[in-house]
């Protein structure tokens, strides 16, 4: 067992666990986007950042890829972590403002402005689909291409790939292109509807009718407060 400290708490991790896995085991919530339990960690979205170390020599690392180490000191929600996390959400929202996952995250972390021009790309290059296709579907039909702004996910030479069985797993796992934000101003880069949530079902039924368990998750009942 590996023993280290997380948010002042002494935690024990199995050999081979990441910091994120340990946090999950202890019920400490760290937001993630490009992480999925069934896939190898990628460390691209930088939402699961945590601050490690002590004193002046601390740094931010992605908890999904950072291995649990003996004597490590981890803070999951420091000032620096939140500042970086908010900026990541803002940057990703400017890329794919239609993503409900990202819009919800913005409301949760209090991101109330997007200061960048919207790219409307509907892809944040998290690579979930690439790993899903390679690791779970055993197809390797899609992959990353190019770098910088030109980076994209596609089939080889952008042609219909014979490896692709049209299984749809890539679409299933995508956090951006499938589940759309249904909030009042979904056309703009930032919805923040969940912050001003006013469930319409209350008017009709005097009860929340959320089929996705917790209030507001489905996003259909959100309307602007008058």
């Amino acid at each position, binding site marked *: 067992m590996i023993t280290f400290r997380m948010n002042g708490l002494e935690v024990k991790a199995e050999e081979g666990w990441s910091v994120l896995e340990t946090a999950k085991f202890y019920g400490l919530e760290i937001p993630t986007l490009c992480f999925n339990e069934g896939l190898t960690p*990628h*460390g*691209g*979205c*930088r939402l699961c*950042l945590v601050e490690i170390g002590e004193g002046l020599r601390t*740094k*931010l*690392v*992605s908890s999904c*890829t*950072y*291995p649990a*180490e003996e004597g490590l000191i981890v803070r999951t929600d420091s000032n*620096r972590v939140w*500042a*970086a996390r908010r*900026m*990541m959400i803002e*940057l*990703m929202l*400017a*890329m794919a403002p239609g993503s409900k996952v990202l819009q919800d995250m913005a409301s949760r972390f209090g991101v109330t402005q997007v*200061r*960048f*021009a919207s790219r409307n790309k509907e892809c*944040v*290059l998290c690579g979930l689909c690439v790993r899903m296709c390679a690791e779970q579907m055993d197809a390797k039909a899609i992959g*990353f291409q*190019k*770098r*910088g*702004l030109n*980076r994209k996910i596609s089939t080889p030479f952008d042609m219909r790939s014979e490896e692709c069985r049209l299984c749809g797993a890539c679409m299933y796992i995508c956090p951006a292109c499938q589940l759309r934000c249904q909030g009042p101003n979904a056309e703009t880069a930032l919805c923040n509807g969940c912050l001003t949530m006013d469930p319409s079902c209350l008017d009709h039924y005097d009860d929340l009718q959320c089929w996705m368990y917790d209030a507001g998750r489905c996003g259909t009942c959100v309307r602007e407060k008058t």
Partner: protein
Amino acid sequence: MKQYRAHLLVCAGTGCVSCGSFKIKEALEKEIKKRKLQDEIQVVATGCNGFCERGPIVLVQPDGIFYQLLKVEDVPHLVEEHLLKGRPIKKLMYVPPAEKQPVPKMKDIEFFKHQRLIVLRNRGRIDPEKIEEYIAFDGYEAMGKALTEMTPETIIAEISASGLRGRGGAGFPTGRKWAACAKEKRTPKYLICNGDEGDPGAFMDRSVLEADPHAILEGMVIGAKAIGAVKGFVYIRHEYPLALKRVEIAIAQARDNGLLGEDILGTGFNFDLEIVEGAGAFVSGEETALIASVEGKIAMPRQRPPFPAQKGLWGLPTVINNVETWATVPNIIRRGADWFQGLGTESSKGTKIFSLVGKINNTGLVEVPMGISLRDVVFGIGGGIPKGREFKAVQIGGPSGGCLPAKLLDLPIDYESLTAAGAMMGSGGMIVMDDKTCMVDIAKYFLNFLQDESCGKCVSCREGTQRMWEIVRDITEGKGKESDIALLEELAQVCKDASLCGLGQTAGNPILSTLQYFRHEFEAHILDKRCPAGVCTKLIRYVVLSEKCTGCLSCKRACPTEAITGSLKEVHSIIQTKCIKCGACQEACRFEAIESQRDEAIQII
């Protein structure tokens, strides 16, 4: 070995080769043959001398006479006067700026006088394609010592005691890296030489690879013995054809001579090397990305730990060091850790190679002891700024380094003080800027480079560099907003904090350091829509100063869009609607009669 009366050492580094040094060599050989001197005089092609500004260069030994800026036409005269009649030609010698008398001897030239050559000790001295010449200058002596007299432990102890730190930029202690890898039980282990030098304006690795490839080979064999590696890879950019060719020759020669391969020097030690050609991505210089590239994958960095020393190439323990680091190793083993300790500062030992480029008189490659001040490098060795202009800033550490202003000229060059000042050692690129340089434009240039070279894995780096570049581009086009500076600072800081690898973690530096030292220039661009240096084309217009214009027509001839009117001996004027602001007229004018002014047409909103 055959004795010669004189040696003509022709510089054959990439700089001089592109200036035609191979043609000079041919002409020299032809002329010498014509005068039947071939048994008395030998012509040798050497590695880069470093004084690239003055190429092609020929050094005549044993006199030590330094000839520069040679042309093929000069060759017959040179051979006749100097080699037959013994009269060195003053016309072809180096004349320092602001002086009239030429300096005949290499060792008296300011550029060479203050350098301390360790890694580049064989530059301009040996033919890099001949192993015999390397051996004649104590080559492979250190390797022999390491293989026959030393154990892995003593080699690592020696390197650790020397205080050598990685020359790739981060400055990680080499001894500690080796010790960590030697400790690993899993085999086989690998060595990698990182020759993926991608910084704009940096060419020290190329020069070492071209001038002294055997030094790198020797260093790697010593490293292999220390950690118990069986195989090494030399990773060189595809863009360095001459370096690739010379390393290839060096490896073949070392193998033929029993200095590489199986049973090296009859000691039973086996180690072999292979060249890997890089496909040209800046990020490949990052060690985990480079390892991915050697494995044949896309060059994308991954999380450390595990470090390459534990889990590197194909998941096996790997030591990866920079070209310069490997070339330093034989010197330490041969001359001892104490000798190396005596050079440099408390925390940074030895020497470092810098490439001196930009607005500087003596462009070239210099090797100086750590701890030397910036002033000594820029004004001492570099000879100051051309045309007597004013020094504004020096950009150190490549695209992710920082710009240091004139008030920091007395800063000693070592890892810690550079980082504290907001720059970094990096690979050692030094770009000097004069008062005609716009710092916002510089920040834009480096951000453009970084946003293009970001591998695109981390949101913070891919999007962060993109957005920073977009904001700075808008500022240079007069579209900047007051809130931009705060946003830039926030973005730069987050990019530094949140990114995975060295590229993203330093990508904020160009912005942070220019904002720290040159904030007023950003403010001038944003608030007044004015470019103080007169560079940002969207904010300026060129005008003819009537009191200075002599009506010589040279600007009119230079203008590509026929935007200049006026006839001989009449004051010219520029038609603003036709002007594309290329600055060709300003360059062509000999009377400084063309000025770039703030474009009054720009509205301040």
